[in-house]
């Protein structure tokens, strides 16, 4: 059945195919437009460079009035990402607005990688390391990047 949420997601998908922002890709799973797989590539010239991080986006019929549930499938080490892969990002919670389509969501998450918000730690170890020991922090990021190549 074609609901407003599904119609909108088709247009999100078309835009992502025809006009993909650099370093992200995403597509609905076969037979289920409400569940997407996506990949975010670590931005060049940062410790994240070379990483390929997989995510899932679960939409409801309330989309775009409500945000999708976005979760990293790849293992992450980041001040604003929980151990289960869920992400602490204002636009995915209380600052959500329908102006964000899938391309914009993924772009925002990509910029969060290099630009963590230390005021809302989801991983306190990563948050502490980010502010107190950047060298060790960057080493942990490199580990995560390497893991992203091998893990399923």
């Amino acid at each position, binding site marked *: 059945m074609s609901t*407003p949420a599904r*119609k*909108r997601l088709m*247009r*999100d998908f078309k*835009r992502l195919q025809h006009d993909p922002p650099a370093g992200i890709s995403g597509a609905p799973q076969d037979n289920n437009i409400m569940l997407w797989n996506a990949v975010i590539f670590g931005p060049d010239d940062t410790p994240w460079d070379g990483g390929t991080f997989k995510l899932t986006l679960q939409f409801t019929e309330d989309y*775009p*009035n409500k945000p999708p549930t976005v979760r990293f499938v790849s293992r992450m080490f980041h001040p*604003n990402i*929980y151990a289960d892969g*869920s*992400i*602490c990002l*204002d636009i995915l*919670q*209380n*600052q*959500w*607005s*329908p*102006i*964000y*389509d899938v391309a*914009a969501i993924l772009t925002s998450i990509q910029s969060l990688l290099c630009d963590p918000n230390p*005021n*809302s*730690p*989801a*991983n*306190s170890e990563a948050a502490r390391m980010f502010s107190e020991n950047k060298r060790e922090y960057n080493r942990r990021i490199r580990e995560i990047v390497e893991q992203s190549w091998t893990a399923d």
Partner: protein
Amino acid sequence: MRNKEPVLDDGEVEYEAGPESCWGNFEDDDVMQQQFSIQDDEAKKFPFVGDKEPLSSLAAEYQSGSPILLEKIKVLDQQYAAIRRTRGDGNCFFRGFMFSYLEHVLEAQDSAEIDRIKANVERSRNALQTLGYPELTFEDFFTLFLEQLEDVIQGKETSISPEELVLRSRDQSVSDYVVMFFRFVTSAEIQKRSEFFEPFIMGLSNTTVEQFCKSAVEPMGEESDHVHITAISDALGIPIRVVYLDRSSCDTGGVSVNHHDFIPAAGDLPSARGSSEKNNPFITLLYRPGHYDILYPK
């Protein structure tokens, strides 16, 4: 002799808040979030838009409360016939504005007004495009509003009654889309005239105009202030009267109720029905700190 307390590990306590509360990093924020969620649940018990009620229902709320407010409600009672409440979910201004405007169009059946508003809606659409908003993110909201506008015009197969308008305003799939439409129009107007709005926004939130729109206009549930009201009134060319019911009083004796008319900046006002009435707002909202309801003049 005191019992030995078990010695607590001196290490830092790590708070790992759940995703629901992660934008707050201390316990206080968790408590606040919980408070918000209780308020949310309370708000949901009330429909988006209530039934028309006599002003005595307003007085009943303050029966054992402030005498100033009761005096002011007496003054209101002389000028206004009824109140229609809106849900206190942060969208009350836009929701009240939506209902009040569509109800006005339904009653007035003024085709010039409909043409005028459609032209302004198109101007807002162009403004969003110019600002670089992808069409797909706002077109559904525009379409749905224009459909409501068409449907309140009588004499067609799709025409709706006043009762149906109430039902639609309570239906989330219509009501939230129209509220969001107004949020888009408001955001476009503020950004289009950012030089004009900048000082007001700096005074309110000390952020850039763009940041203000992203954080205080475009997300659902963000409350409206005079910046939002000025912007929507200007963008659509619709005058709005806001009546203030608060504890302020003046020394000169008699109690009076203040109001402020938001008159669109552009010369583009609803069609003149005799010049004296030209600027008379047909939308009246009652403001109590933090909330807007609809008022019906006598």
